[in-house]
């Protein structure tokens, strides 16, 4: 693995590490690491630094729904055109072209069931290319972005073992 890619892998797992710490981990100078990060930011390889938050823990209600969307393609409207149109709504969390009965999987985020349902009814279903939609509300999430949202394992190692 090249050192450049290793920097990416480290950041993908923990964006809070400083360039100095990353430099010590991979055996580069701090300046080198800064340069590598800057380059990847400029090239759009690194898209954004975010924080994964469990909103339920602070009593915030967040409703996610997965909407399967079937569309009609025309000469003027390709998948890309339709996807972009859907993706631009801030309520839309993710848009993916998928295989199977439906064409798109759209993840919508809202404050309540009603909120999400109305958004789909008013903004998605009414698009001329959309033939039909199928909404699944998320009841509970167990793993997001590769992170387990439950804790069932703890470190049981003894403090001293030769």
């Amino acid at each position, binding site marked *: 693995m090249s050192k450049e890619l290793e920097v990416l892998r480290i950041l993908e797992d923990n964006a809070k590490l400083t360039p100095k710490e990353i430099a010590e*981990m991979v055996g580069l100078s701090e300046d080198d690491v800064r340069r590598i990060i800057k380059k990847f930011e400029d090239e759009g390889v690194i898209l954004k630094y975010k924080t994964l938050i469990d909103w339920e823990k602070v009593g915030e209600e967040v409703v996610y729904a997965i909407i399967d969307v079937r569309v009609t393609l025309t000469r003027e409207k390709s998948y890309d055109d339709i996807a972009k149109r859907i993706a631009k709504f801030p309520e839309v969390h993710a848009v993916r072209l998928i295989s199977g009965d439906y064409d798109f999987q759209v993840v919508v985020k809202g404050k309540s069931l009603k909120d999400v349902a109305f958004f789909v009814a008013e903004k998605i279903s009414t698009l001329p290319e959309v033939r039909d939609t199928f909404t699944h509300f998320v009841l509970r999430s167990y793993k997001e972005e590769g992170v387990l949202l439950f804790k069932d394992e703890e470190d049981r*190692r003894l403090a001293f073992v030769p």
Partner: protein
Amino acid sequence: MRKIGGLPLSRKINERVQAIPPSGIRRFFELVIGRKDVISLGVGEPDFPVPWSIRESMIYSLEKGWTSYTSNRGLKELRDGIAEYYRKFGVETCGENVLITTGVSEGLDLALRATINPGDIVLIPEPCYVAYKPLAFLAYGEPVSIPTNPDFRVNYDLLKPYSKFDPKVLIVNYPNNPTGVTYTKKELEEIADFVVENDMIVISDEIYAELTYRGKHISIASLNGMEERTIVLNGFSKAYAMTGFRIGYAIAPEEIIKAMTKIHQYCMLCAPITSQIGALEALKLKEEEMDRIRAEYMRKRNFFVKRLSRFLNVRMPDGAFYAFPSVRETGLSSEEFAERLLMEKGVAVVPGNAFGECGEGFVRCAYAVSMEKLKEAVERMEEFVENLKSK
């Protein structure tokens, strides 16, 4: 009344057992009980739990009722799988030459008991894992320590003077616990020359083989003329974190494997079947997964050793997950350093003299902990050492 070291002997207990001093680490163990703020760099085991695919396969085997004994030597698929796996370290062997043991600890005991006659000399380069000397002694061998300071490496010139003892067995361990030292093929050839010249047997503890950061691990058994005189010991504890499952193996010439199996069948019967099934699954883990685990350890090593080197004299280890810095500059002994660091800063390390007399002046720090803890631990250590130096 007979005495050993000034202490009267009990008639009830075997003399050699009585002669073995109590573990020095036990005292430290009691110091941490009930303390919540302690970051432990004192543990010789990985910080991640056993990969889920391995655990899941074990659960499934229990559901299917696989709870019986296996053959003494272990499941055939597992023995064959290990023989195949060991090709990557240069050894051409087959399942017939593999014995599944209850951890490397049992393998070591069997290897010594199967080869040693009372009074045989066992050469043990130190610092080394704590079990070698006591087990050789309990097998009625005469362990002879070889100090390896200052670079902790074993080579021909270091070994040469010991041929006068007419030694029978040499125990090597690389990557080494506690020093992290490992060897190139050329360096191993030097060791092999000494072994062949003196018609000895090598017990090669290769438990950290997967955690080799510079070059590739090469088994000493793969060298010319060594296959017939090497007992390779390895297991699943370190690479796959399966410490509590107690599962290891020995690879040796048929004659020795048969002898070891003879003891194993009476003292252990077989390794636990559930652990054997987990081991079988571990062998299926993709090479990329092992690469990922190795890369992660390597990052922690780089970070930790670099930080340590700001305030302590330390060598970059080439394998395993230990750093072995010198604490001589602080003016404290290994034990004083470890005890005060624990009491004053809540960081647990193991005093170097636990690994042999020549480990005095050093401490062993296991860096197999999360980056956050590692960072915190090394900062606390720096404060501790700077404070000592400024006095």
